[in-house]
């Protein structure tokens, strides 16, 4: 156990804090607040402030999974085309004489010319179905279990790096 772990001097220097202190506010307090929020942004801000940290991390994780799915889908389509073209060849054929695609860039060009954007994003749906929960669960569990192991090992939640001071 270190003095660092107890984190008893909040006023000595500004520390980055890891979790919003009022993140786990009980529900009934919400309803007692007067509905004076004029702009939708303010309403959203208050709503976000009351969400548990796990919701935030899993939402961010899901969105990051979606983004990576959108980026990798064309690459996967290209890779699959390049690899699959061999499998429809007859067993006796040798060499690359009958190959349609050579290299990633020209394959991309061919797919784009033939099918456009739809060709590039073939199979995006099932891919997103896999990536979204993968990253949502990963990020949420990583974030909370890292905090758990930090506290278990007697470390403070957020390390104050040398750069900050």
């Amino acid at each position, binding site marked *: 156990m*270190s003095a660092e772990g107890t984190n008893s001097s909040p006023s000595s220097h*500004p520390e*980055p804090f890891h979790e*919003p202190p*009022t*993140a786990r506010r009980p529900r009934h307090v919400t309803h007692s*607040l*007067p509905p*004076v*929020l004029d702009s939708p942004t*303010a309403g*959203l*801000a*208050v709503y*976000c*402030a009351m*969400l548990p940290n796990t919701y*935030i991390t899993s*939402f*961010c994780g899901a*969105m*990051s*999974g979606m*983004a*990576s799915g959108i*980026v*990798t889908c064309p*690459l996967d389509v290209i*890779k*699959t085309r390049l690899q*699959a073209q061999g*499998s*429809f060849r*007859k*067993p006796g054929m*040798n060499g690359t004489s009958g190959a349609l695609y050579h290299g*990633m860039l020209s394959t991309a060009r061919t797919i784009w010319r033939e099918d456009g954007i739809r060709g590039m994003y073939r199979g995006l749906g*099932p891919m997103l*179905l*896999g990536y979204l*929960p*993968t*990253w949502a*669960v*990963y*990020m*949420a*569990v*990583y974030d909370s*279990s*890292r905090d*758990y*192991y930090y506290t278990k*090992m*007697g*470390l403070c939640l*957020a*390390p104050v*790096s040398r750069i*900050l001071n």
Partner: protein
Amino acid sequence: MYAENRWFARIYASITAGACSTLVTNPIWVIKTRLMSQVGSQAPEEARTPWNYRSTLDAARKMYRAEGFRSFYSGLAPALLGLSHVAIQFPLYEYFKLQFTGLEMGANTTTMDSDHHWVGILAATFLSKICATSATYPHEVLRTRLQTQQHMYPASSHEEISFRGALGSAHIRRPPGASSSDGMLNLPRYRGMVRTIKTMLAEEGWRAFYNGMGTNMVRAVPAAMTTMLTYETLKTSLFHLQVEGRRIMEQQEEGTYT
């Protein structure tokens, strides 16, 4: 000493998170692989898969009825072995990100401007992903060989034909990395980890363990960079939104909200 503990905490956290996400998503990947490996109804009898599913839900229902709950978790053990990848990637990412930006993964601060961290995030992801891929790629090659029992290189040799049959059984050919050992019929060529490694070393040399790593990285590195940048950026904006929301709530409680 504390820095060491931090490394361990991050490694444990990566493994915990990876295990949870694998347990949740394994059924989805199994169903996806089975649906994708189905061939058309015009295909010859030999090439057809032993199953015929119409949709994702149909596949889930039929799998549960015919093979029970366990079928959703086929290929789980090798997938859990693959957790070594995230156990390298994320602790390294944390380390590099802390060096470049002064903040941990997902951490934010109100005291400094964290909007210009994207270069650091991208660099940290790039380095950590390359390290993790180089370290775990041989294992993935091994896993693919064991699962699919096929040579990726050289393609269409006689050996390949003799082990797979001359008839083009299209559903057995799967790209490397498409992970699932979902009960497909393959003639065993490699048996056991050690014997497989020996066979591969004798036949193809150590380079075989790095076959296709370049192509793999062309896909994996941009994917990881997108994932991490989106996650961190979104997390930062939501953090700022939360700070704003708490300020409004405090003002409301004091009755000074305008």
